[in-house]
């Protein structure tokens, strides 16, 4: 991938809460806010930080399956609903399953690089609690190849990653892998408890690690190789961020120190009609993340924090390996040793990631960028980690489907 031809920044991030089981406000029997609420809240949350809608040249909105969760298509039409100042301006909806948010970001980056825009409003959202989990599984399964749906598990994606976990157990050992997966869960909960918008913010179980380690996968009630604690939950939520050029930053009156610069990015897609070559490896993540690092001209040991797509704890462990932090089969040990914890060698998912913060599918990619922006600019509140001078970079990895669509971005605080 070519070097970026001009400087691109992100700033003014905003997250709604991630609503679903675990949040005190959530009651499945009572009416909940619809997509309009989430789009508006996230959009306005960004606009108030950048001097209003008049400063925005165009907008991108990422969403996976509003067509079925909410019976709503034509989502770019909701952009002017956020603010009249966005009417009669370009807006586009992008979709790449759970990487829709990441696509919203890279689309915005390309618009700025193409110099068609100086300021882009990038949003991502999903409102999934409209159906029970057993039907939600059908809808989310559309991130796979539909011709494989018939032979897939009732809970299709947990089934896919259960197969991956099963292959990993067999190849590298069950006990050590479960330890790594349990630690991954415990880290997610510990981090989510520090972010008031996180779905697990109210989680107060006394020993998440012990709870996760004790729980055994049971194929009779769920899937063969994962427990519910290995999975991200069903979430409603939206996130937004501004993507802009240097000129754009000036226009919106934001200091570079309060923005993060996009140093490089990667974006790759694998053939959805084929099975992964190796179930124990996430090859597209590996490819796209290395592409991003290369594009940025840095190595992983310069990265101070990572937001990776842990839709399942095993995906988190495999991402550790894909990044080259541990050899194949040793990612679980790396995690079990606490190296991805908030005080570890390389803190991952510092506001909880998909398992802890939540996974409103189409919003997740944008949420990851917001977390990195918060951490690198010192705006992460109680979830703030220390970013050292020798590891000043942040990295995001957003995955759609079973390692099919991946976007990865390298950030650094503006200077």
């Amino acid at each position, binding site marked *: 991938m070519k070097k970026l031809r001009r400087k691109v920044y992100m700033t003014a991030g905003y997250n709604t809460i991630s609503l679903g089981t675990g949040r005190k406000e959530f009651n499945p029997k009572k009416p909940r806010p619809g997509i309009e609420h989430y789009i508006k809240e996230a959009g306005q949350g960004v606009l108030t930080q950048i001097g209003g809608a008049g400063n925005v040249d165009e907008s991108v909105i990422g969403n996976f399956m509003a067509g079925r969760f909410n019976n709503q298509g034509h989502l770019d039409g909701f952009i002017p609903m956020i603010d009249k100042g966005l009417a009669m301006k370009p807006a586009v909806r992008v979709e790449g399953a759970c990487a829709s948010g990441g696509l919203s970001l890279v689309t915005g980056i390309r618009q700025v690089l193409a110099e068609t825009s100086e300021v882009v409003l990038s949003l991502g959202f999903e409102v999934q609690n409209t159906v*029970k989990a*057993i*039907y939600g*599984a*059908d809808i989310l*399964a559309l991130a796979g190849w*539909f011709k494989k*749906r*018939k032979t897939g*598990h*009732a*809970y299709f994606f947990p089934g896919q990653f259960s197969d991956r976990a099963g292959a990993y157990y067999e190849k590298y050992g069950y006990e050590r892998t479960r330890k790594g997966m349990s630690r991954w869960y415990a880290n997610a909960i510990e981090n989510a408890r520090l972010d008031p918008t996180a779905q697990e913010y109210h989680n107060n179980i006394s020993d998440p690690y012990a709870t996760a380690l004790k729980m055994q996968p049971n194929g*009779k009630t769920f899937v063969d190789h994962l427990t519910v604690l290995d999975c991200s939950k069903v979430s409603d939520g939206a996130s937004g961020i501004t993507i802009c050029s240097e000129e754009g930053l000036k226009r919106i009156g934001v200091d570079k120190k309060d923005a993060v610069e996009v140093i490089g990015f990667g974006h790759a897609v694998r053939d959805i009609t084929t099975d992964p070559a190796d179930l124990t490896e996430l090859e597209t993540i590996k490819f796209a993340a290395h592409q991003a690092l290369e594009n940025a001209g840095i190595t992983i040991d310069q990265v101070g924090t990572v937001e990776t797509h842990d839709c399942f704890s095993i995906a988190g462990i495999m991402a550790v390996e894909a990044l080259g932090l541990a050899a194949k089969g040793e990612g679980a040990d790396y995690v079990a040793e606490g190296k991805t914890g908030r005080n570890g060698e390389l803190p991952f998912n510092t506001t909880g990631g998909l398992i802890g913060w939540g996974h409103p599918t189409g919003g997740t990619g944008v949420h990851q960028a917001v977390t990195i922006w918060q951490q690198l600019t010192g705006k992460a509140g109680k979830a703030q980690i220390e970013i050292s001078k020798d590891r000043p970079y942040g990295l995001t990895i957003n995955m759609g489907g079973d390692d099919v669509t991946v976007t990865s971005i390298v950030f650094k605080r503006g200077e």
Partner: protein
Amino acid sequence: MTYDERLQNVSVLGAAGKMGSGILLLTAAEMADRALLPENKGKTFVLNAIDVSDEVLAGLMNYLRVQVRKIAEKKTVWLRKMYADRDDLIENFDIIDEYIFDVMNIVRPVTAMEVAYRSNLVFEAVNENRSLKVKLFSQIKQNNDKDVWFFTNTSSVPIHLIDEEAGLDGKIIGFHFYNPPAVQRLVELIRTDNTKDEVVDFAYAYAKNLRKIIVPSNDFAGFIGNGHFMRDGLHGIKEAEALAKEKNIPLYKAIYMINKITQEYLIRPMGIFQLMDYVGIDVMQFILNVMNPFVKDEDLQNDLLDKMMEQGVKGGQYSSGAQKDGFLKYKGGKPVAVWDIHKQEYVNIDTFKDECDEMLGDLPDSAVAWKSTLRMKNKEEVFSRFFNDLKAMSTMGSQIAINYGKRSKAIGEKLVSDKVAKNSDDVNTVMLAGFFHAYGPINNYFD
């Protein structure tokens, strides 16, 4: 006839009632599941839902559709395997809808009882009325040319009497579900001396497929569940009356206190007066009347219950499941007032609660709420500590509670010595699974 052949034509009498609808639902799902097995492909299964009016049957079909969806949603993993050969059914949505269709397709709502003449199995869930049961069974038996078996959801009438009077030749078994059948896991199975072994075998297989906890009870009026509960309830009334007399206080205050003791001191899901309201004072009186002629050494008639009935205060539940007022008046499911039998009005608990609680005395620090014990692993240890503390106290509340626990145990032991229950475990299982007690009545906590 194999298990599946027996299930190919079944009738439920009283199918739209509270018990009948649950029995119909479970049976319909079981029949649909059998029909889905490869060996049963192409076979027809018919379940006649028989009740007195088209209106109640229409309501039943709505109830069924909603409930079958819930059942299907819980076993979608299995259903996907069963429908694996159906290329047109791909998503969970498709599969669940098809299963609902398959179940509903088995059920024939009908007001004409004659359809039962072709059934191999008849489930009866009409009122606890011996002559009605006998009438229906004998009519079906006379007109049915199959080897028809009768499963009766009887909670108190001795089954052998129904057998003899209807001429069923032992092809009957008591299959006593607890309310609501779709949720409550306990089933009391009552065979008579005459009940055929094959009927018993089938009943066990059927109950097991429904994932029920089976407790065999001997054929003695009231069986185990009502045998214990009715006497426990009568004891509660007697204790309240004695307390009112001894302390010279109005009965409603004593009812409040006994209800509190039986819930909080005995760690039960609800107090005994609330439980009588839940069952229904009318139902309780009715069952006592059924049982009374069969018990020799005790009188189960009760003046207070009769008086409540006269005053039209009956408890029980609305069709929504909400609690009707009885001994206690309820707001949001919680007792807020107690019926004053003399003034015939409710007296708010707030107006006398403090005074009564003071008379009872404090609970020891080791007290636990019933709900908190549900998932407790060291229950026995916790109960032992609490009841030992209770025994060491001399408050009025603790004394009454200990005596109540002893009486509850004695009732249980008598069910065993009278051979209603085979052993103390069966009595305890019924009270644990059917009444959600945290510990069985036959224990050593109160000795």
